């Protein structure tokens, strides 16, 4: 029987939160990082790995800088940057990009290949992938992404088949319950992780934990598109051990970010 009080003291570390004005905003969103922190406080979320809406909707060239400037000094928010293919040189060379990440304490990257119109193949991103593998930098992208006619879990499989050592976190898998898609991938690729922001499936977290352990799951909220409270209460109440709950809530993400060597 689980400790009935323990969820209240669980350290939630959200791997998938965002702020900033969007092209098409949801009915409610955080315009700035202080508003995001208010929402996190309201829901009992201690820390978040954050991205800025401008990184996708405007440009990585604008959004990466905005994010790093705006979260400076806000220790509970951990910045991520968006990538572009190195060949165009828009973000400098891979070395300069990494140096910028180091200076701005950025430990994770996001890809938006549909919006930013690039391929996620090794031909396009190989040099960056190789450095990410070497430095253990995780890459996040939404399963709703597509590029070059490839989308969803097939895109995930293509990326991992080409670079299986890459630490990949796939977000936003949908309400139709994607287990038939992602379970084979979890078994085939040890570096695949999924966030829990849209894992609404009744009994899904428990079933996955019992079969695969908690290590591949990261607590995420998908805020501001998604209401933070759903993922919070789902994980708090899941029929899993407190040890597994703590790992998903933040332990796995802390370990992942702790292994990054910039």
């Amino acid at each position: 029987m689980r400790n009935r009080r323990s969820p209240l003291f669980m350290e939630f570390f959200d791997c998938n939160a965002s702020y900033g004005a969007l092209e098409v905003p949801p009915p409610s969103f955080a315009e700035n990082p202080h508003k995001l922190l208010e929402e996190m406080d309201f829901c009992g979320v201690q820390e978040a790995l954050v991205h800025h809406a401008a990184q996708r909707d405007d440009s990585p060239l604008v959004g990466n800088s905005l994010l790093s400037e705006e979260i400076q000094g806000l220790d509970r928010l951990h910045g991520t940057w968006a990538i572009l293919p190195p060949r165009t040189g828009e973000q400098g060379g891979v070395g300069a990009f990494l140096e910028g990440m180091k200076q701005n304490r950025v430990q994770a990257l996001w890809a938006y290949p549909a919006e930013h119109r690039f391929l996620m193949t090794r031909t396009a991103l190989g040099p960056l992938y190789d450095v990410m593998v070497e430095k253990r930098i995780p890459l996040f992208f939404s399963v709703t992404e597509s590029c070059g006619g490839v989308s969803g879990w097939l895109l995930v499989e293509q990326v991992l088949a080409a670079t299986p050592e890459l630490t990949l976190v796939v977000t936003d898998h949908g309400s139709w319950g994607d287990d038939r898609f992602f379970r084979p991938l979890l078994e085939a690729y040890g570096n695949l992780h999924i966030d829990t922001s849209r894992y609404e499936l009744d009994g899904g977290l428990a079933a996955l934990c019992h079969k695969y352990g908690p290590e591949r799951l990261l607590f995420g909220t998908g805020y501001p598109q998604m209401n933070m409270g759903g993922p919070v209460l789902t994980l708090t109440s899941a029929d899993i051990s407190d040890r597994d709950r703590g790992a998903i809530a933040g332990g796995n993400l802390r370990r992942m970010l702790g292994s990054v060597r910039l």
Partner: protein
Amino acid sequence: MKNPSRLAAEFMANGRADSCPVIDMHGHLGPFQGIYFPNPSPEDMLRTMDRAGVRFLVMSSHASLVDTQRGNRLTAEVVAQWPNRFRGYWTINPNYPGRMAEELEAFARSQGFVGFKFHPDHHRYPLTGPRYELALRYAEEHELLVLSHTWGESRFNAPGMLATLAERYPHVTFLMGHSGYGEFDKAIQAAREHANLYLELTAAYRVNGVIEWMVREAGSSKVVFGTDLPWFDPHYGIGCILFAKITDEERRDILHRNAERLLKL
């Protein structure tokens, strides 16, 4: 956690709140085509309901969406076995107009059903089409509930189409399944303008800020809770309600009071 809600604190501590017996107005039963369910049986669903403090679930079996004769019978069996935990919706499939009179007779003989379930997107037939009329006239005469799937910009079940039916059949209580997901503005307007039309929250709860919008513009008395169980963990939807910026009284309206009124519990 700075959320001052006492209900939120109770659910966070225990996974349920004994002072807030939830009623789920939108459920199903059994396996279905495009999704893996860990908990599809009625026994599984009861365990989930107990863990989340769900007192009642009103549901239609997945089988009934495909074959009403087999599927409504399955719903009836489960309702009969657990009359204190399940109520049923009798699914109407407009693609079998020849069966409609027989279906309505079977409904009339059944116990534990509160009304009809329409799923126009699945059946590829418009909500306002003539093949639904017999069932709607019956529902009007007997003042039944009708839960219809709705989705934004669908040519089969957009929210405006349910508003048309609410106007046409004033003694039917319509539940707008998923609150016209994607066209929330039209769904909320329809609920505000029609006393017999309610917003049903399955899946819609997840969209950040939408619960506050519904409560502000349609009122908490016009919103009911649903999960599509065995699809969605009730904790996900309940969590969205608990952490929406509304009062505990409004949360109670959504989680059980409105349903109690509609079901005459």
